[in-house]
């Protein structure tokens, strides 16, 4: 029986090549898109699967309230460690203090590498399950030890055994290699870690960290934990919730609440608003999951439409089979088997398409997905996918075709009824509504990205590079290098800053000023800079003046951005003082406001600029040199001159730099990737819809051959006939527009409100989506309509 079904299916396919091609191609594209999206989703949800204990690992987070607004983040104070160990230690297998990701210079002889890594306590090795392939698992217990990744070890030592060897870290510390860990694969939080150093080393070699040991207000660290088996994240979160509030008297006003952010949520649910987790990347999963389903649905609709449109051709067979004793369920099974057969063929084609498109897909999505051929779960998913698709595409045609009455169809009088095409029309409208909604959605996303990209950033990011200067070698050399770089002719301006130009690394509170409201809980972005920062960045002053070397008092000067002025509620700020709230011995000297600049976008381009204090860096807290390239020379020339100068002064250090405009562009990368993927999928969705329309148009033209012949004989012109054949489809597409536009508007209006800095949804988006859909419809159906209308009427009438 099954064989018989497949024979019929195959022969039907091979006899109706155009329909078969449309069906198989449409389904294959739909399935390929869904599979690619499936791979993408799989890659996203398996992020951090590298860690075998991921179910029990968490990061300690903190929610604090500033001026009634809750803020949540992973930064915690150092004294938390002792409190956690003493009071709650029995809940954890590991409590691990950690730095943020660090960039260090690692030097062995003449080899000097700049690599990213972490400083953390020894428990990290066991907790995260890093594989030590050589050396001592407890190698981080000695403060002067370092663990290297296989790659880094090989780069530094070649074939020699690195264990027990001493390397220079940041040109300052001699550290012994105690272990080599297996390279951490991609797709997890720590996949950039190339070295690990002991937390104790990190704490001992930075004065500010040592000073933070008793300072509950200094939230500058990270803490990772592994909870004991049998404990839940929720119950441990409840337990540790009030720890800081109870221990830190001075912090009570911020109502700090500690909690565990489970590792399984780090990647997909990393966003918090008002103290609540509001998801994050998971939204993209839903977005693409929905797009994938829609694209598959579009392809299935083609299958349904073409199968039922051709029902008159299959009616006779249904009649004969019923006469010969076939029951309806047998016929339903037969048609489902046929759709299964077609879906299987489409699946094979889809697999080829996926395999071929994976390199481009990876480039577009910034991923390194591959088809997991060896995973049984992959094959189970494929099988389910084929069955579900076959059922989705085949069930309606199966039920429809199997319902025919054998008496009617065998009499040869069978004609699909007046309303027989209604479901087809509904499906076409569904298809085009989805396609138009996807077009509108993609256009709005692109417009929003464009809007944010073109946002005035408050400084000139073109021709600006930044050189990271983390190594001890750079200490105290700013003035020397400033002069050297300018003299080289490769740069026309230079400044130093604590944070990179496109980020803010520090936030400070604990300040007061004249007119500050009682109980106001301030929180400023804090950027330490050298004298030349505002001028080298091209910041625009709206009040006051720039830092100046001529005024010795500028060592206590501060420049505000406009948002800070509004935030502080200060009138005529220039000349006023910002004081440390702490009046004790350690209190910082008052800072004098010398100028106000237009807001400079350093953090998210989608959010309002934070109130920022640009503070003169007294202690040489400089992590970046920012150089404005000489506009009179080529970029290449400038870079050569700068590198020469750099190498003259730091021959042992690698010369590395970043273009600020490229760094700024990175802020949009995630959204641009999402938009590009959505655009590609939308184009494919439209293509599938048009493919279906093309098939239907050819069917309608074929069905109306006789009518067209008679009309031609009676004097109808080709354009009359074209209009007659096209009108119905155009009406359907216009109906789709009426449905899609309000739905898309509603959804996108909701979406866009998540951006504080947002574009408006312009009318032209709807007009262009609508015109685009109409144009595509005309283009698709005209081919068939004109062909049918230009046919010889004598032939079509004789055929009858």
């Amino acid at each position, binding site marked *: *029986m099954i064989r*018989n079904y497949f*024979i*019929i299916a195959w*022969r*039907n396919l091979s*006899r109706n090549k155009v329909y078969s091609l449309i069906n198989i191609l449409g389904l294959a594209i739909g399935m390929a898109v869904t599979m690619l999206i499936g791979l993408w989703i799989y890659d996203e949800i398996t992020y951090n699967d590298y860690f075998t204990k991921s179910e029990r690992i968490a990061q300690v987070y903190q929610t604090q309230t500033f001026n009634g607004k809750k803020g949540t983040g992973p930064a915690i104070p150092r004294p938390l460690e002792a409190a956690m160990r003493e009071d709650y230690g029995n809940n954890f297998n590991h409590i691990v203090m950690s730095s943020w990701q660090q960039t260090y210079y690692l030097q062995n002889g003449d080899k000097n590498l700049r690599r990213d890594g972490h400083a953390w306590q020894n428990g990290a090795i066991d907790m995260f399950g890093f594989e030590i392939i050589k050396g001592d698992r407890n190698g981080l217990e000695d403060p002067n030890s370092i663990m290297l990744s296989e790659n880094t070890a090989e780069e530094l030592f070649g074939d020699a055994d690195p264990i027990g060897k001493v390397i220079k870290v940041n040109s300052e510390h001699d550290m012994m290699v105690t272990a080599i860990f297996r390279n951490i694969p991609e797709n997890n939080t720590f996949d950039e870690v190339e070295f690990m150093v002991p937390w104790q080393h990190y704490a001992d070699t930075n004065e500010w960290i040592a000073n933070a040991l008793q300072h509950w207000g200094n939230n500058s660290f990270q803490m990772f934990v592994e909870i004991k088996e049998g404990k839940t994240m929720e119950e441990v979160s409840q337990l540790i919730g009030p720890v800081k509030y109870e221990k830190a008297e001075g912090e009570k006003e911020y109502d700090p609440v500690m909690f565990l952010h489970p590792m399984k949520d780090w990647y997909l649910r990393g966003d918090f608003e008002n103290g609540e987790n509001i998801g994050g990347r998971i939204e993209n999963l839903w977005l693409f999951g929905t797009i994938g389903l829609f694209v598959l649905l579009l392809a299935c609709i083609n299958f349904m439409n073409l199968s039922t449109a051709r029902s008159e051709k299959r009616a*006779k*067979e249904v*009649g*004969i*089979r*019923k*006469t*010969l*004793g*076939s*029951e*309806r369920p*047998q016929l339903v099974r037969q048609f489902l088997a046929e759709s299964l057969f077609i879906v299987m063929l489409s699946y094979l084609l889809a697999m080829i398409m996926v395999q071929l498109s994976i390199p481009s897909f990876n480039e577009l999505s910034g991923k390194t997905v591959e088809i997991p051929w060896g995973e049984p779960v992959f094959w189970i998913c494929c099988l389910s996918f084929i069955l579900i698709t076959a059922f989705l595409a085949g069930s309606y045609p199966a039920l429809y075709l199997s319902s025919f009455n*054998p*008496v009617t169809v*065998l*009499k*040869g009088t069978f004609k699909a009824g007046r309303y027989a095409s209604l479901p087809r029309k509904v499906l076409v409208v569904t298809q085009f509504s989805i396609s138009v909604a996807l077009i509108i959605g993609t256009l709005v996303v692109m417009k929003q990205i464009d809007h944010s990209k073109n946002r005035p950033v408050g400084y000139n990011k073109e021709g600006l590079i930044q050189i990271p200067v983390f190594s001890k070698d750079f200490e105290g050399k700013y003035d020397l290098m400033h002069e050297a770089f300018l003299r080289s002719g490769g740069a026309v301006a230079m400044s130093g800053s604590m944070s990179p130009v496109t980020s803010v690394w520090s936030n400070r509170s604990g300040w007061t000023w004249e007119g500050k409201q009682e109980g106001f809980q301030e929180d400023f972005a804090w950027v330490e800079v050298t004298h030349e920062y505002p001028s080298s960045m091209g910041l625009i002053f709206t009040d006051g003046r720039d830092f100046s070397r001529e005024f010795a008092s500028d060592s206590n000067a501060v420049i505000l951005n406009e948002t800070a002025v509004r935030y502080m509620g200060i009138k005529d700020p220039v000349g006023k003082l910002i004081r440390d709230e702490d009046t004790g011995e350690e209190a910082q000297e008052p800072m004098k406001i010398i100028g106000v600049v237009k807001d400079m976008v350093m953090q998210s381009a989608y959010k309002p600029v934070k109130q920022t204090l640009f503070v003169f860096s007294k202690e040489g807290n400089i992590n970046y040199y920012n150089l404005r390239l000489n506009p009179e020379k080529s970029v290449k020339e400038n870079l050569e001159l700068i590198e020469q100068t750099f190498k003259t002064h730091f021959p042992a250090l690698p010369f590395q730099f970043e273009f600020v405009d490229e760094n700024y562009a990175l802020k949009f990368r995630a959204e641009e990737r999402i938009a590009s993927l959505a655009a590609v999928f939308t184009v494919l969705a439209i293509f599938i819809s048009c493919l279906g329309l093309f098939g239907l148009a050819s069917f309608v033209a074929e069905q109306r051959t006789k009518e067209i012949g008679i009309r031609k004989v009676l004097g109808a012109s080709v354009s009359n006939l074209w209009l007659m054949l096209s009108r119905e489809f155009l009406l359907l597409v216009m109906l789709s527009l009426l449905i899609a536009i309000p739905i898309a508007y509603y959804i996108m209006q909701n979406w866009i409100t998540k951006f504080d800095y947002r574009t408006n949804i312009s009318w032209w988006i709807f007009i262009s989506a609508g015109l685009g859909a109409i144009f595509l419809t005309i283009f698709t159906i005209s081919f068939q309509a004109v062909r049918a209308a230009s046919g010889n009427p004598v032939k079509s009438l004789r055929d009858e």
Partner: protein
Amino acid sequence: MIIQVKNLEKYYRTDEVQTIALNKLSFEVKEGEFVAIMGPSGCGKSTLLNIVGLLDEVDAGSFVFKGQEVAHYSERQRARLRKHNIGFVFQSFNLIDELTVYENVELPLIYTGVKPSQRRLQVEAVLEKMQITHRRNHFPQQLSGGQQQRVAVARAVVHNPKLILADEPTGNLDSSNGNEVMQLLTELNKAGTTIIMVTHSEHDAQYSHRVIRMLDGHKVTENIMA
């Protein structure tokens, strides 16, 4: 008695009009009989054949098939009874274009659940009997009308039904092919198969034992053939 029909009624309804296709029709067919049904177009012959063939439903009256009252059988019950007991031969052959001769003939056996090895034996035997073995791998459109009707007859008899219903079996054939088909039916009848045949052809009717003549859904006369 294989068929007993009493006061059979069948109506066709369009939006506003109701047409009577069969009007209190009664007749019987004995096992092994060869009955021809004749009458002008629209008199209800084909409707009767469809009802007797369990393809169509009855609106009123009684229809006893092999001793069972089947007038109110569901579609499923009718399909089950039909596939084991009845073979059809149509004027327009009604072969499935996408299947070969062999596969077309095999189809009733598939639906009656005959095992593949047994199927092969039965199909080969009937193809040989109909002298179309050499055409077994051809598709219907590659055959002449006469050959197609032989295939249709082969398909109708392959599962040894008790009853063959033939709806103008020679209507689309020339006289020579027509005669061949009538010979085939006669042989089958002689072998014990009951045959009911709708025909316009007096010539074909002469092959039968009895002719029922109909008009406007009634039985008008019934003649025993010599």
